[in-house]
């Protein structure tokens, strides 16, 4: 049984809380980025690019067993770290859940404070796009 979005979010908050200073938190984010599985080059197309990010971000989604599976990548490692977190939380969840969830954990780990307005906008477009995919699958 897939853990709930909230539970996974809390898990991530706990993991980040283990680190006291930003440098260790960044190191952790970098590790998460490196752990993100490589994606097939066929997904790295213009249509999958999320606009509004300072680095290139590709996001693709498919439906498997009534659940939404996300496939994403970026050319910047920190961004990949953020993507890895979002995928861990949202990928494999039901469309309905993805649409209605609020992603409190992002605020709790202080990620928004770390990002400038333009970068936070990038993060928001990423989340928005994930929800749009979920919405599309829900109606199918």
């Amino acid at each position, binding site marked *: 049984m897939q853990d709930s979005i909230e539970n996974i979010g809390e898990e991530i908050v706990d993991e980040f809380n283990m680190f006291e200073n*930003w*440098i260790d938190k*960044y190191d952790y984010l*970098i590790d998460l980025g490196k752990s993100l599985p490589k994606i097939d080059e066929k997904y790295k197309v213009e249509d999958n690019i999320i606009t509004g990010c300072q680095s290139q971000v590709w996001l693709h989604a498919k439906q498997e067993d009534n659940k939404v599976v996300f496939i994403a990548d970026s050319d*910047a*490692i*920190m961004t990949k770290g953020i993507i890895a977190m979002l995928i861990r939380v949202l990928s494999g969840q039901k469309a309905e859940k993805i649409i209605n969830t609020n992603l409190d954990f992002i605020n709790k780990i202080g990620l928004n404070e770390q990002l400038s307005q333009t970068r936070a906008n990038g993060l928001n477009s990423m989340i928005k796009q994930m929800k749009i995919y979920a919405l599309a699958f829900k109606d199918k």
Partner: protein
Amino acid sequence: MYSPENIRKYFPILDSEVNQHKLVYLDNAATTQKHQSVIDTVSQFYEKENSNIHRGVHYLSQLSTNKFEQTRESVKNFINAQHTHEVIFTKGTTDSINLLAFSYSKILKKGDEVIVSEMEHHSNLVPWQMCCDYSQATLKVIPITNSGELDMSFFKKELSKKTKLVALTHISNSLGTINPIEKIIELTHQTDAKILIDGAQAAAHAKLDVQKLDVDFYCFSAHKLYGPTGVGVLYGKEKLLNMLPPYQGGGEMIKDVSIHKTTYAELPHKFEAGTPNIAGVIAFKKAIDFIEEIGVENMKEHEDILLNYATLKLEEIPNLSIIGTAPKKSGIISFVVSGIHHYDLGLILDKLGVAIRTGHHCTQPVMKKMNVSGTSRISFACYNTKTELDYTVDCIKKAIKMLS
């Protein structure tokens, strides 16, 4: 004796801490920090002098008008223009170029040509694309070489009697290249074409003499000269400015208005519709006073020392390549580290208190030419020190280690 330490005392922001580290500000090509006298003048204006200029007969209006016009006089002397009314105040370099491009779009026609280069900031490219769209003129683009210099043979070949305007940057904001504008102006004037030089990156780093250069139009921003944001200059030769149609309509730029017909004011007001950034223009004079007190040549000499020092230190870092290696460069270094995204590097440097710029620097064609998605860029000003560069280089090494 040039002392950046002494100069720093007049820049209060340089004492601040960012992310628990002393700020190292190396994003001067984006904007420079502000001199104390500039900051004081802005606040004094609003505390004691605020009034609209040119139209009022009352004391405050006279006072602010006089001060506003004193800055125009200062700018005239700073660039050695022949006439004070050849100095047009704008919102900034981008605004200056848009003004000129708009006016030119009204006089260019099909068959005419405008020449720009591949190294232009988008601000000196997009307005000319728009101008050529409107007027049906043709835009020609001088390519750059691998080291980041203009292909002068292409330029010579393309210059013809069809050329009406050449619009080129004095110093490249993403590569640091100093273009041979003296030669370019001379070549341009062998035809009937006029020339605009985008001096955004040059005005605080090179001694200017528009008469000696014989340049037709020159523009720059106050905020890259230790002055306020929202103030720019368009210099133009009197005869040419008189010939061009006005840009924006409104108050100040008129001589006489009836419901069907308006006659325009004389220079410089013809191009200055609406209430300008009065406080900013007045404070800009203080920035010019500061530059003239230190001497722009002395600043340049100091920045050249920093440029050479930082270049050598960066070149020692494995896998780091400097983008833009022209023999004549200003205090701008763009670089990439193989396998590491500039965004990641910038984020970590920020956490260490170092402000740099990452991305395409509004020069996407340059990035394309150099085959990179973006770069990390450090850029110097008169107040930067070797100690700051040592710290920055250490931070870059640390970031690379984290990201590898």
